[in-house]
């Protein structure tokens, strides 16, 4: 049995973010693996950044935790300075700056989703290199390759919240 327990903790993951006609729905699985071994079968990959913005983490567990911790801290300061809740675009930009400037050292793909009063529900996908792409729905993680086909067929604009949740759970 080839178990390398010193392998960096990665979250071979499936994460999804979907907008619907009232906001966004985020979904994620809960397995963290070290090589072949399941290190945590109940991990929480959807992390809160602010009251209205959450991020789905995939890739290296350590890197994504550190990035989301930093961004939460920056957003907290930003909210205090601004005097009103931060927008999803700002959160996505902060993550993007960290991801792009440290692209040689980080290995994490993130999906930022949230709601603000200016733009409504928004999803931003931030894959490995540090690109930011605003999308009506985003999928990420190693398990996402299986979902491209599903979403191509199943996605439509202006779903209700229930439809969106069902689709994510099914995926």
């Amino acid at each position, binding site marked *: 049995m080839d*178990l390398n*327990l*010193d392998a*960096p*903790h990665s979250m071979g993951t499936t994460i999804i973010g979907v907008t619907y006609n009232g906001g966004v729905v985020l979904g994620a699985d809960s397995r*963290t693996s*070290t090589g072949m*071994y399941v*290190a*945590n079968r*109940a*991990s929480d990959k959807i992390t809160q950044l602010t009251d209205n913005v959450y991020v789905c983490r995939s890739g*290296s*567990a*350590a*890197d994504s*935790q*550190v990035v989301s911790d930093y961004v939460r801290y920056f957003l907290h300061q930003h909210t205090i300075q601004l005097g009103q809740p931060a927008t999803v675009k700002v959160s996505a930009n902060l993550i993007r700056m960290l991801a792009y400037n440290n692209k040689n*050292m980080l290995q994490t793909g993130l999906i930022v989703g949230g709601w603000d009063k200016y733009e409504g529900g928004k999803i931003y996908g931030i894959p490995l290199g540090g690109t930011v792409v605003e999308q009506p729905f985003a999928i990420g993680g190693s398990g996402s390759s299986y979902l491209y086909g599903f979403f191509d067929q199943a996605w439509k604009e202006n779903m209700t919240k229930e439809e969106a949740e069902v689709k994510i759970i099914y995926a």
Partner: protein
Amino acid sequence: MSQSTVDVPPKGGFSFDLCKRNDMLIQKGLKAPSFLKTGTTIVGLIFKLSWFLSHCSDMVSSQLRLHRYQTGRDSRVITALTLLKKHLFSYQGHVSAALVLGGVDITGPHLHTIYPHGSTDTLPFATMGSGSLAAMSVFEAKYKEGLTRDEGIKLVAEAICSGIFNDLGSGSNVDICVITKGNKEYLRNYMEPNPRTYVSSKGYSFTKKTEVLRTKITPLMERVEITEVTGEAMEE
């Protein structure tokens, strides 16, 4: 033409310079020198009001003490967690320390695992180390919520024993640490499932003592020069 690089004296801290070279050597087939790994099984478990830790590690206790003095409050488990996390992340996994951190603070009992690369998980029961798979199998089978203290101790001991007997890297005895609110109990050698079976009743005497061949005493006072500096007091 002047040199563009300057010889900078090495600053403190971890030097990653050799890591690339080591990687290259390993790729070329050189066997890396093996560290003395303390193959271990460590295990943590939350029961009702408190939790256990069967192998304690207090790397950041001094930092926590300073933090306590500064804030005037009792330390929290997540403070220790963040300190350890930052420390391990900055070494990018080269400090091979996998930890189970637990404690009881004002917010209640907490149990966290910390991996060498700096990622953390928060769980009701956790195992780490070479025997972690064996111990985790016991936990997954037998853990339930609302355990009493004695049930918890028994379960943890069982999990560690499973690590001891089934993992080649773990062995000998079980140490348990029970932490409750305001009180900790370190049960060293709670179980000794591997006693020495044959102990000679006569005891052991080593007849041949080591011979002393030569004695040479070098008083260091002659090597060290002490100069009195009569200068002025330091002024700001």
